[in-house]
């Protein structure tokens, strides 16, 4: 190559690499495994900067789903687990992977469906009745199918409505194995019903002809809990920094930050760290 052309290219390459090189981070940080709903709704974007400013700790969120988050906790790849599946969380602690479970907040699930509503459930207040109608009508229903908190809640609701959905599903039941957002995309494109958390729904932009059809039933209540990964099982877990985060999120200040998160004026998550039996 011509000398000058070669030089130009190497300078450009060097500049590019330097520009992309990170500033050295001596920052303290913890890794939190959480669910897609908390990240995608925008909750973390709202509360974590408040926490970082107050305590000087960076929180790195790996937002997957309840199943994978708990798995990360078992492997020791996270310091704190923040999910919404109480029975799975309690099992996690019973098996020795977590120290203690503290309730943090709740949001609710809503039953989403097409405005055309073939199963005729719109406006109902009884989620179990609605599910029975959907099954009876063999209306298309999209499930996350990914062992997430939402998926587990959905299966539990089917059970309470008298259906063992794993055994009794028909072609109308679409098991997508995806997160909340992709499942909503799927429901939108096929005009199907699905169970979603309100937070993700409010910030979801591709609604098509979907709308909330059933809400408010106490059984749609969705509780979040936070757990420190057991430092006895994994020596490297940042137990002190992790505990600072946990203490903060259940403190008055943390709870206030959660309540202060709104989309279009609506509050998505309701702090309840002090609630008994939550």
């Amino acid at each position, binding site marked *: 190559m011509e000398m000058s052309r070669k030089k130009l290219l190497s300078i450009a390459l060097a500049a590019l690499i330097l520009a992309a090189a990170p500033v050295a981070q001596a920052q303290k940080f913890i890794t939190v495994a959480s669910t897609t709903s908390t990240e*995608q709704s925008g909750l973390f974007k709202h509360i974590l900067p408040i926490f970082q400013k107050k305590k000087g700790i960076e929180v790195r969120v790996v937002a997957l789903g309840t199943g994978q988050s708990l798995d990360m906790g078992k492997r020791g*790849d996270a310091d704190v687990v923040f999910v919404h599946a109480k029975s799975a969380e309690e099992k996690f602690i019973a098996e020795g992977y977590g120290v203690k479970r503290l309730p943090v907040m709740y949001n609710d699930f809503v039953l989403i469906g097409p405005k055309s509503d073939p199963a005729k459930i719109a406006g109902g207040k009884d989620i179990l009745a609605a599910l029975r109608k959907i099954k009876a009508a063999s209306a298309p229903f999209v499930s996350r199918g990914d062992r997430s908190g939402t998926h587990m809640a959905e299966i539990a609701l089917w059970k309470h409505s008298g259906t063992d959905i794993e055994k009794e599903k028909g072609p109308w039941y679409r098991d997508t194995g995806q997160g909340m957002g992709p499942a909503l995309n799927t429901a939108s494109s096929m005009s199907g019903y699905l169970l979603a958390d309100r937070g993700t729904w409010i910030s979801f*932009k591709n609604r098509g002809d979907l709308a909330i059809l059933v809400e408010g039933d106490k059984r749609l209540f969705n509780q979040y809990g936070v757990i420190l990964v057991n430092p006895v099982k994994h020596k490297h877990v940042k137990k002190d920094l992790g505990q600072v985060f946990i203490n903060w999120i259940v403190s008055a200040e943390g709870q206030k930050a959660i309540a202060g998160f709104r989309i279009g004026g609506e509050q998505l998550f309701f702090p309840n760290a002090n609630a008994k039996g939550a």
Partner: protein
Amino acid sequence: MGEILIALGEAGRLIVGAEAALVEIVLLSLRVSLTAVLIACAFGLPLGAAIAVGRFWGRRPLIVIVNALMGLPPVVVGLFVYLMLSRAGPLGQFGILFTPAAMVIAQTILILPIVAALSRQVIEDAWQEYREQLRSLGAGAMTSALTLLWDTRFSLVTIVLAGFGRAAAEVGAVIIVGGNIDGVTRVMTTAIALETSKGDLPLALGLGIILLTLILALNAAAYWVKEGAQRRYG
């Protein structure tokens, strides 16, 4: 159609605005993929040359294997590297999981076979032409390999750019080993995946257009280098 126009508008707005978050994502994407390409070439080019020029037992099966590895599914590589780097895994003590370093490792594994296989092909073709003359002049296997690497440099540049393009375009590996952490391991492709799953399709498309433009510019550069060199150097 309307969606695409909105996306173009969004892309324009993003680029002109040059928001810090966007710039950070693009720079991180470049940093990860460039580093991966550099490492992959440092190992892959000599490997390709060695296989092209060498004569050893198992050479043919090795060529087949390296060619086949070009088709490694990124998500499988991601899963494998995740299991290796997880605290529960053999290399867990280094704490590399969910950092850009893990992403570099995964992408390097992905593009190394591409660089090795393609450079082997290029160098072997050149070797057919040069072999007798180089041996006549007294060049041994190592010297020949180095000579061929330099002589095929323009074709090799094209291969390097192809490797970079492949790295910059994949999402399966980096999302698993990086965790798509906001501000730490979020790159263009994982950001697109996230925005799509949030249903923010215009934003996802906008990012996608930026990524496509980058890849296009890269291919144009590769073409420019090859053509210019062909004309000047024969």
